[in-house]
C-alpha cells in the first residue's frame, strides 16, 4: 500500500514536505557518531572499549536511518519492515551504553553473568519485534504506524533506556569515589555525555511517538530534538580523546572532530530556505573550514610536541637513572682514593715513616687539606644523590640542640679567626630538646650554614643565634658578607644550585650543601630559608625545628 502524504523519496530518505529539522537532526548526529566511532575503532581495533563505541555508533546510525525511512517512505510494506527495528535498535543502544561504561570504568570485559543478563533483557525484544506485540498495522492517512504500536512493547524498550541510565549512574558514582583526580574528570565527562544522550534520546523519542499515537501531536517531530544528545555525547568523547587520550586514538581524533564540525554546519543547508540564510550558512561554512584547518594544524603540532616532550621526559628519566648509578660508582671510587691519600698524608705528617724533610712539610700539609676537602665534596655529592633516591635513614633520638649548635660554632671558630671574622653565639632561655639525628643535623645543617657564612663573609661579623619560640626552635646564622641577589635566592636550595658568582668566592662549592641542608631539615619536620637585602648587604639563614615537647600535630618526625 502507498500513502500519498509525500512524494516518492529519492535514495530512500530524501523527500519533500517533511519537517525542516528532519535532516539537520538526523544526518549530522549519525555522521558524527559514525566518523568518531570509525576513527576510534580503526585506531585500536583490538581494544574492547573502541569496539563498543563503534558498535553503539553503528546502532545509532541504523536507528537514524530507520527513522529517516519511516519519515519519508510511502510504501507500507517496506515501511513496516523497517519500523520493526526501532525498538530493537534503541534497546541495543541502551544496553551497549551500559557495556561501554562498564569497560571504560573497569578496564575489562563484563562477566559471563552480566552477558547473560543482557541476553535475557534483549532477547524478548528481538523475538517479539516482528509480531503483533510490537506492530500490528499501518495508517495510510497519516502514513505512519504509531497507532498500531504495542504499548507494552514500547514501554519495555523505553524502560530499558531508563534502566540503562540508572545502571550507568550507579556504576559511575561507585567508581568516582575511589578514582584518581585525573580519572574523575574523565568519569564526569563520559558520565554527563552518555547520560545526557540517553535522557534526550529516550525521553524525546518516547514522548514524540506516544503523544502522536494517542492523537495529541500531529506528528512525532519532538523526537528530532532527542538526536542532538548524540552530538553532545560525541563532543564530550572528543574532549576525552584529545585531553585524556581515552581510546588511545592520538592525532586523528582532532581531525575527525573538525571534519564532523564541518559536516554539522554543512548540514544547515538541508533546512535553510531563504537566500539570506543560504549566504550566511555558506560564509559560516567557509570560515569554519579555514578555522578548522588552522585548528587541526595547531592541535596536531601541539599533540606532536607533547608526544615528543613525553618521549624526551621518558628518555631523560632513564638517562638520569643511569647517570645516578654512574655518579655513585665514580663517587665511591674517588672517595676511596682520596681517603687513602688523606691517610697517607696524615701518616707522613705524623712521622709514621720517619721525620719529614722540612722543605716537604708545606706541600704535604696542603695536599692533606686538599684531599680532605676533595673527600668531603665527593661525600656531599653522594649524600645528595642518596637523599634524592630516598635511601637516607635518620635516627630519632632526643638531643639538646643548644649543645649541638655550641659545638658547631666552636668548630667554626678556627676558620673564622683565620679570616679575621668575629663569630659569636647567643641562645635564649628555655628547653632546646628535640628529636632526630644529631650527627646529620650537625654536619649538614648547622656546620654547613656556619661554614657558608665564614666562606662568604670577607670581613665583619657572623652571629649565630638560637631561641625557643612557642615550641619552635629557631636557629639563625647572620653574617655581614656578600649577600644574596634575588636571582640567586631562587636557586639556593636546589640540587647543584650555585649562586651566580659563588664559585669565584668559594672555588670548592659543589652546590649541594644547601640542598642537603634543606632535605635534612625537612626530614626533621622543620623549614629552612634565607633572607638578604641584596648583594653586599649580608644574609641570614634561618632553620626552624619543632621542639620535642611541641604539639604532636605540628610535628613531622624524621624518617
Amino acid at each position, binding site marked *: *500500500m*502507498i500513502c500519498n502524504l509525500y512524494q516518492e523519496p529519492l535514495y530512500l530518505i530524501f523527500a519533500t514536505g517533511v519537517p525542516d529539522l528532519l535532516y539537520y537532526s538526523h544526518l549530522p548526529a549519525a555522521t558524527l557518531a559514525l566518523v568518531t566511532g570509525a576513527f576510534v575503532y580503526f585506531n585500536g581495533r583490538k581494544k574492547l572499549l573502541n569496539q563498543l563505541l563503534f558498535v553503539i555508533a553503528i546502532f545509532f546510525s541504523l536507528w537514524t536511518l530507520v527513522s529517516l525511512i519511516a519519515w519519508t517512505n510511502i510504501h507500507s510494506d517496506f515501511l513496516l*519492515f523497517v519500523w*520493526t*527495528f526501532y525498538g530493537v535498535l534503541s534497546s541495543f543502544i541502551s544496553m551497549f551504553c551500559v557495556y561501554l561504561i562498564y569497560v571504560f570504568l573497569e578496564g575489562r570485559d563484563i562477566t*559471563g553473568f552480566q552477558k547473560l543478563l543482557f*541476553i535475557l533483557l534483549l532477547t524478548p525484544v528481538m523475538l517479539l519485534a516482528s509480531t503483533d506485540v510490537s506492530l500490528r*498495522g*499501518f495508517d*495510510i492517512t497519516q502514513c505512519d504506524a504509531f497507532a498500531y504500536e504495542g504499548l507494552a512493547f514500547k514501554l519495555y524498550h523505553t524502560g530499558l533506556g531508563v534502566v540503562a541510565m540508572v545502571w550507568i549512574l550507579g556504576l559511575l558514582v561507585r567508581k568516582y569515589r575511589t578514582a584518581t583526580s585525573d580519572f574523575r574528570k574523565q568519569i564526569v565527562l563520559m558520565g554527563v555525555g552518555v547520560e545526557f544522550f540517553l535522557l534526550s534520546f529516550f525521553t524525546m523519542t518516547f514522548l514524540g511517538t506516544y503523544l502522536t499515537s494517542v492523537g495529541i501531536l500531529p506528528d512525532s517531530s519532538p523526537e528530532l530534538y532527542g538526536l542532538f544528545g548524540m552530538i553532545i555525547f560525541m563532543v564530550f568523547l572528543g574532549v576525552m580523546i584529545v585531553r585524556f587520550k581515552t581510546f588511545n586514538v592520538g592525532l586523528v581524533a582532532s581531525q575527525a572532530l573538525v571534519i564532523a564540525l564541518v559536516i554539522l554546519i554543512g548540514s544547515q543547508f538541508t533546512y535553510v530556505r531563504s537566500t539570506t540564510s543560504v549566504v550566511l550558512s555558506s560564509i559560516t561554512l567557509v570560515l569554519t573550514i579555514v578555522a578548522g584547518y588552522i585548528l587541526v594544524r595547531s592541535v596536531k603540532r601541539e599533540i606532536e610536541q607533547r608526544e615528543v616532550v613525553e618521549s624526551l621526559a621518558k628518555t631523560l628519566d632513564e638517562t638520569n637513572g643511569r647517570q645516578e648509578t654512574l655518579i655513585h660508582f665514580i663517587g665511591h671510587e674517588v672517595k676511596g682514593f682520596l681517603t687513602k691519600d688523606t691517610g697517607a698524608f696524615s701518616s707522613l705528617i705524623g712521622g709514621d715513616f720517619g721525620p719529614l724533610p722540612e722543605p716537604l712539610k708545606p706541600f704535604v700539609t696542603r695536599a692533606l687539606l686538599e684531599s680532605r676537602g676533595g673527600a668531603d665534596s665527593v661525600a656531599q655529592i653522594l649524600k645528595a644523590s642518596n637523599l634524592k633516591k630516598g635511601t637516607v635513614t635518620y635516627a630519632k633520638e632526643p638531643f639538646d640542640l643548644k649543645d649541638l649548635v655550641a659545638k658547631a660554632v666552636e668548630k667554626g671558630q678556627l676558620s673564622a679567626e683565620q679570616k679575621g671574622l668575629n663569630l659569636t653565639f647567643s641562645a635564649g632561655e628555655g628547653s632546646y630538646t628535640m628529636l632526630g639525628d644529631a650527627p646529620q643535623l650537625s654536619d649538614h645543617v648547622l656546620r654547613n650554614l656556619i661554614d657558608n657564612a665564614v666562606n662568604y663573609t670577607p670581613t665583619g661579623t657572623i652571629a649565630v643565634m638560637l631561641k625557643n619560640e612557642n615550641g619552635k626552635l629557631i636557629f639563625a646564622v647572620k653574617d655581614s658578607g656578600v649577600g644574596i641577589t634575588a636571582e640567586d635566592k631562587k636557586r639556593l636550595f636546589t640540587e647543584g644550585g650555585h649562586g651566580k658568582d659563588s664559585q669565584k668566592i668559594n672555588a670548592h662549592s659543589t652546590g649541594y650543601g644547601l640542598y642537603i641542608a634543606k632535605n635534612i631539615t625537612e626530614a626533621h619536620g622543620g623549614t629552612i630559608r634565607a633572607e638578604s637585602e641584596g648583594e653586599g648587604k649580608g644574609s641570614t639563614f634561618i632553620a626552624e625545628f619543632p621542639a620535642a615537647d611541641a604539639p604532636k600535630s605540628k610535628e613531622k618526625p624524621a624518617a
Partner: protein
Amino acid sequence: MVTFQKNMLAFIFVPLGVFLVLSSFYRFVVSRDYMVSYEASCDPQQHSCFVGCEDDACSEEYFYAKAEKHAVNLYAQCGPDITDCDEANRCLDENDSRCSILYCVEADGDTCAAAMPSEEVLGADQKVFGPAVGQLPSSSASVPSEDQI
C-alpha cells in the same frame, strides 16, 4: 581464539538478528500480514460521516468513514494504491476477513456530517456499510465482514 564465553553476545544475537530480519521481511513484505487503516469515502446522505478539512483553514470539507482492512486483502482488491478503489470503501462478502468500517457517532464527541441518511437508503446498504446510526451498541459504528462473522 573465538570462544563462546568471550563472544556469547554475538553467538546469540547474530542468529536472532538474522531471524528478525527474515521474519519481519516475510511478514510485512511477502505476506502483507498486517492491518491497514485509512479514510474510506462516505456519503452523508446515507451514513453519519466524519468531517475532514482539505486545508488548514478548512475552506473545503470532505466526508469519510474510518476503514480498516487486512493488507493482503486490500492489496488483492485495489493493488498498491487505494485511491479511487471502490472495494476499499466497503467490506466485501468474500476474502475480506478482519475488515471494518467505522462511522461517526456524535455522542462520542466526533464531528459528524450534518445531513442524516434516509430510512430507505439505510436498509439497502446495511450489509455493506453497517447498521444505521442509533442502532449501534458501542460508541462507534463498526461492522465486520461476513466471513469474519
